[in-house]
């Protein structure tokens, strides 16, 4: 085989490999290049996050608006501090925005849902969301139900 044919086919091979890598990055892992530059972090304290994980989605009205950056625990108050990375500039969430932890689908992936507030003032980078409702834990609900049934 001529060297020229070999060179052309190797060039095509390397190009195909590079394109495959780009495809994996963009289409499969869904990298959003503008995402990292335009985001800020707000905190929310929950009494129970029950299975919420870092990188879970944060949504408002069902649309993804951010991700859970990290989760810490406050031993003193027995609360979980969840850091939410919100897309966009600070100022797109009102000060009395609420947050609750919900379950998505049958496999039970937890996510944070933001409830719109009415305040004119807005949350700045690092602010705390006051209105929160933790995850509903099935065992607690069942336990509650049994106690009530027993009482009546």
């Amino acid at each position, binding site marked *: 085989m001529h060297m020229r044919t070999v060179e052309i086919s190797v060039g095509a*091979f390397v190009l*195909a490999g590079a394109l495959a890598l780009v495809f*994996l990055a963009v289409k499969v*892992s869904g990298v959003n290049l503008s995402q990292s530059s335009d985001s800020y972090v707000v905190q929310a304290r929950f009494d129970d996050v029950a299975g919420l994980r870092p990188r879970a989605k944060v949504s408002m009205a069902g649309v993804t608006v951010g991700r859970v950056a990290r989760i810490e625990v406050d031993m003193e108050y027995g609360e979980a501090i969840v850091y939410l990375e919100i897309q966009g500039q600070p100022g797109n969430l009102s000060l009395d925005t609420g947050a609750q932890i919900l379950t998505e689908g*049958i496999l039970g992936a937890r996510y944070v849902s933001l409830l719109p507030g009415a305040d004119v003032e807005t949350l700045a980078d690092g602010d705390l969301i006051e209105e929160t409702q933790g995850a509903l834990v099935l065992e607690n609900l069942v336990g509650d139900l049994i106690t009530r049934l027993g009482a009546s």
Partner: protein
Amino acid sequence: MMDLVRALGDRSLERLGSLGRASVMWAAALWGLPRLSELPLVIRQIYNVGVLSLIIIVLSAFSIGAVIALQFYTQLARFGAEDAVGLGLALVLLRELGPVVTGLLFAGRAGSAVTAEIGLMKTTEQLSSMEMMGVDPLRRIVAPRLWAGMISLPLLTAMFNVVAIYGGMVVAVEWLGSDVGSFWSGMQDSVELWEDVGKGMVKSVLFAIVVTWIAVFQGYDTDPTPEGIGLATTRTVVTSSVMILAMDFILTLSMYGEFK
């Protein structure tokens, strides 16, 4: 009893010795970057081990992707979670099956060919005549094949993953009627660039180093007889496959061990 101990010790020393020879060969061959004048040799070898392996990689990728999608779909459909087919397929392929299956196929298709080629060169004393002419066979024969393998296998792995995901999509979306939007969005939601794509590629680079190293060394260290070549070719495929599977377990454990 003494004979057994002696044979055992003899064998271990022999293994240790071949590991030593392999390391020396590897270091000597890769000492310094390839000179520009050697680039045509590397390109020729990329053609031999990479381009010619493409057909088997693409065909296996398509059928493996299709089979995984089929299995995932039927099992997940029992829980009404068919939408998770895309993400399950992508994670399984990127993290495990892509690097491992491509590595195994590469060892069988390209590794064995490299061993047989170099083994025959040694048997017909081409390597020693090169040395006589003042041409270093390590630079001329061994180094281009090592570089070509280390470049080709990661590229083949990336193509394997893409084709397999496409094959899975054909089965899940076109045939079984899963929703195309949730197929891709489920995948994009949970696949991460470094955690899944990047670490999978790291695995494949390590497999590439090990497979090409074993293939070239087995050829270079062949017993210069017809049986020797056959034995070396078998040993290349067996050792590479076992090494890939063992390494994959260790790598998975160290990369994803704590399951963050």
